């Protein structure tokens, strides 16, 4: 169990001066990932908010080696870096132990980078892929991705007169990765820093591929005041929209027990993207969403008993 006092003594590896929105969860997640790292890391990142805001030439917020090449290939790019590392180490040109972390948003992970991620995980590279899921293409101005929750308004799934926002349920990306039978998979939220730090440390300790899906609330795309980022993440956990769990060598475990499950509608009410669902006539959508969450939560609990 990490202590903040100890973590605060480590060198800060993400500088200020990046251009993320005030209250953005991305840099919070990154700081927690980097404070968890107990060995040198090299970061790869897909195109997206995080990449754009932290590396505006000649300014980089990263104090660790960082590579971005394109949008759909964070995993493939890092698989090349990791392979080069093994090759050079084998040939005696390098002796350090380094861990490789590939980052991507939900667009870069669930959608356009799905294949690249699947390939890299199957090949068994010694790397952690971390998805920073804010539930839409925020960098291009809030467009729907397959991670966008049902009912959400985005600029390409707008709440119109006929269609009430996104019609489909989101893709269960974490389960897709569990199906890859890799040693370690987890879900995390920066609001529970200790849980997140522990999971990153577990993923680092794995000799092989690991995947962590981190929910990063987006105050702009979700529509809430910037100071609420941590709280809204917390409620994503208590409502079971984003249960904190891990799958270690096939064994499911809920890492944060839910004492009192909060209603999904309460969580949604705080976000402008769901505002239209509270108009009369949309009650059934809310019910459907709640039912799905209950069902998924039940299933997860079942899986944990196995």
């Amino acid at each position, binding site marked *: 169990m990490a202590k*903040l006092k100890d973590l605060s003594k480590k060198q800060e590896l993400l*500088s*200020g001066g990046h251009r993320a929105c005030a209250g953005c969860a991305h840099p919070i997640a990154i700081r927690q990932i980097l404070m968890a790292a107990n060995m040198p890391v090299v970061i790869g990142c897909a195109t997206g908010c995080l990449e754009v805001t932290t590396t505006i030439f000649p*300014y980089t917020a990263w104090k660790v080696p960082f590579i971005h090449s394109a949008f759909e290939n964070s995993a493939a790019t890092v698989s090349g870096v990791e392979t080069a590392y093994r090759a050079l180490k084998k040939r005696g040109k390098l002796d350090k132990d380094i861990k490789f972390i590939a980052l991507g948003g939900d667009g870069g992970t669930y959608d356009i980078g799905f294949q690249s991620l699947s390939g890299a995980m199957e090949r068994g590279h010694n790397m952690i892929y971390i998805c920073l899921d804010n539930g839409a293409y925020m960098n291009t101005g809030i467009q729907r991705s397959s991670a966008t929750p049902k009912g959400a308004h985005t600029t390409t799934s707008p709440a119109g007169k006929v269609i009430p926002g996104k019609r489909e349920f989101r893709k269960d990306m974490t389960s897709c990765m569990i199906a890859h039978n890799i040693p370690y998979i987890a879900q995390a939220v920066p609001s529970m820093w200790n849980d997140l730090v522990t999971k990153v440390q577990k993923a680092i300790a794995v000799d092989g591929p690991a995947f962590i899906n981190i929910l990063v609330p987006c105050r702009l795309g979700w529509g809430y*005041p910037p*100071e609420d980022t941590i709280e809204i993440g917390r409620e994503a956990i208590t409502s079971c929209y984003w249960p904190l769990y891990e799958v270690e060598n096939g064994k499911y475990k809920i890492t944060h027990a839910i004492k009192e499950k909060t209603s999904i509608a309460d969580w949604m009410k705080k976000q402008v993207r769901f505002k239209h669902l509270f108009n009369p006539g949309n009650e059934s959508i809310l019910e459907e969403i709640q039912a799905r969450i209950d069902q998924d939560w039940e299933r997860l609990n079942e899986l944990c008993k196995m």
Partner: protein
Amino acid sequence: MKTLGWKGLPIGGLILEGGTAQQYITGGWRTMRPVIDTEKCINCLTCWCYCPDSSIRVENEKITGFDLDHCKGCGICAKECPPKVQAIRMVAESEIRG
């Protein structure tokens, strides 16, 4: 930072040093400023852990202030300060700057 011409820049768009964003000031984005009451602060470091802009200064396990060159004034620190502590409050920049 001096704006170099093509002959002077490192090739391939590389940035050869880490953390140069430190030289970029985002403090001007702020409309609200965090102000800490060190008497009330219990140094739990929760605010430090949740700051998106690496702008809470910690020395020897203690909060020593804010990096106002980079703090964007999001207010997460004030909001996440434990309810029983409430050591940070957000003050309008206009009040401070006059």
